[in-house]
């Protein structure tokens, strides 16, 4: 009966019902859509951070992260390899790398960058570089003089495919190591900073230049399930001697991990702000609906209806307004997400600004069931909670006063 009365009462004044429902619809729509957009931006930032030579887990010689010099290289990669073979869950990929700071120069320019020696075939399965070469070709495993550089770096060096680039760094003996490479490929990355920062050569070439023999700087691992990173890192840490350090992506990308934590708190706060604006609309409209029907509430009480039953009747009206508004708001929110899921929002025009925050050039919205559930629960339960005020008002009218009301 409460639901029947509630349902019919909300259609007594369709315009007022439309106004309050529009408030709920816009609130839920923005919560779902902007929540998905922000979540997508954050996920892209994390994905990009992980793909940009981070991986889900990294293994280094102890001390490498404080001082990333060739002295702190892993000298016995076979030990790490055998540990990984037994510990990594199915679907995991990993690759070794040599990674040192170097100075690149040509006839006109010189600049600092990170020289990365890779196994091209394995690296392609772990980081972005496998599908990032847009001009020229990828490296081959035994490439001796080939180098792949980023487009931004090539532009700033005014160089291109087939041109020579000299790299200089410090070898294992502490002496200056220098070698000339020829550019065989140019890659594009999500961020210009990545294009400027990294240059890739085949691992044997890097090891030879730095006199590392079999030595490597790091092992990067991608898991099938990102959520297992902490557990797997812990297991690898336990299996390897203490001369190795094992870090998950949350430790390797502390800023992003902090963003992620901040984001969850921010979402709650933001939902609350949207709801407060919406809540005033709900209370105001429900109060109008209650004061318009004072006589009716008086009648209900005269007929023997208890105050709590009247509260339930008013809450039933709010229930329908909220559920209908939420249904339409969610539909619009999900349709908006769907519309942008293919093309995303292109922020190339302000790429320099977005890069400052580690954002990608194109943002794709990502719907999280948890975010949608939190938004809906908040609107529903807080909506009913604020409706208690007009409902309690309706329940407090005395029959005589209410029936005398004109």
């Amino acid at each position: 009966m409460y639901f029947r009365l509630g349902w019919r009462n909300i259609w007594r004044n369709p315009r007022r019902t439309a106004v309050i429902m529009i408030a709920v619809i816009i609130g839920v729509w923005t919560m779902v859509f902007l929540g998905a957009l922000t979540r997508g931006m954050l996920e892209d930032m994390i994905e990009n951070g992980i793909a940009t030579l981070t991986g889900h887990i990294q293994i280094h010689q102890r001390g490498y992260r404080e001082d990333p010099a060739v002295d702190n290289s892993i000298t016995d990669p076979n030990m790490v390899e055998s540990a990984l073979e037994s510990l990594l869950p199915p679907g995991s990929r990993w690759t070794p790398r040599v990674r040192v700071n170097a100075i690149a120069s040509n006839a006109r320019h010189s600049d600092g960058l990170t020289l990365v020696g890779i196994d091209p075939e394995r690296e392609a399965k772990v980081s972005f570089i496998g599908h990032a070469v847009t001009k020229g070709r990828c490296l081959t495993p035994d490439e001796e003089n080939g180098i792949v550089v980023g487009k931004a770096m090539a532009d700033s060096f005014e160089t291109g495919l087939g041109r020579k680039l000299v790299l200089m760094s410090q070898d294992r003996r502490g002496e200056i190591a220098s070698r000339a490479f020829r550019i065989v490929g140019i890659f594009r990355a999500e961020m210009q900073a990545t294009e400027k920062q990294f240059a890739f050569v085949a691992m044997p070439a890097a090891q030879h230049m730095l006199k590392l023999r079999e030595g490597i700087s790091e092992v990067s691992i991608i898991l099938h399930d990102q959520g297992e990173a902490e557990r797997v890192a812990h297991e690898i840490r336990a299996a390897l001697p203490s001369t190795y350090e094992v870090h998950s992506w949350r430790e390797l990308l502390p800023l992003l991990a902090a963003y992620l934590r901040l984001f969850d708190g921010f979402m709650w706060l933001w939902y609350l702000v949207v709801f407060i604006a919406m809540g005033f609309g709900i209370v105001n409209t429900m109060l109008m609906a209650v004061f318009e029907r004072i006589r009716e509430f008086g009648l209900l009480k005269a007929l023997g209806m208890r105050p709590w039953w009247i509260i339930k009747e008013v809450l039933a009206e709010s229930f329908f307004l909220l559920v209908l508004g939420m249904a339409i708001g969610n539909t619009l929110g999900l349709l908006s997400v769907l519309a942008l899921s293919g093309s995303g929002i292109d922020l190339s025009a302000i790429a320099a600004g977005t890069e400052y925050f580690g954002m990608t050039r194109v943002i794709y919205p990502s719907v999280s069931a948890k975010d949608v559930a939190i938004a809906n629960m908040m609107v529903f339960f807080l909506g009913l909670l604020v409706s208690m005020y007009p409902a309690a008002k309706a329940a407090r009218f005395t029959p005589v006063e209410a029936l005398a009301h004109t």
Partner: protein
Amino acid sequence: MSMVECIDVKKSYRQDKLEVKALNGVTLSIQKGAFAALAGPSGSGKTTLLNIIGGLDSADSGRVVVDGHVLETMTQSELANLRLHNVGFVFQSYNLIPVLSALENVEFVMLLQGVSTAERRDRAIAILDDVGLEGMYNRRPAELSGGQQQRVAVARAIVSSPSIVLADEPTANLDSKTGKGLLEMMKQMNESRNVTFVFSTHDKMVMDYARRLILIRDGLVADDQVKEG
């Protein structure tokens, strides 16, 4: 057997800074099965007395007993229960629930009482037929004439077999022909179901129909006549 007992009932209201004495010590007794009218000019206190008997309002002092219940000792919840199970109301302005059909309006009180759906439906249809609204079950109040709405209100008041029906100026908004039809119907209900009816009115026709006429003036019982036959 007494259905209503009022002993020295007093009630005053505050209007702005003025105290208005609505009842100045009413004492009366109404027997079960009565068809009585509280008559008097506007402001005489008859509606106030009716509200107090119905448990809608409370007396400042005195004693009110309705169907064996001493009202001044009852809580709001107990009064609500009394109104739900023992008292039926008919108001001057019909006061039907506009979003419910005639049938649903009649069913409403039984629903609050917890009567089963099937029984509710059967009893509501039967009473609507009795008050001459056969075939109008699904009409909403806005689709009924004033007389038909008041018939629905009467049907609602008596469908759950209350001990007493209190009708506040039931014919005030009706033309004389419709009002007469309504009074005939209520009289028939009174006789066939032995339901006690108490009206407040200043309509002569209602006074003529009443078997007992209690005249209220200045918050006191000024006259009390029981008609013969």
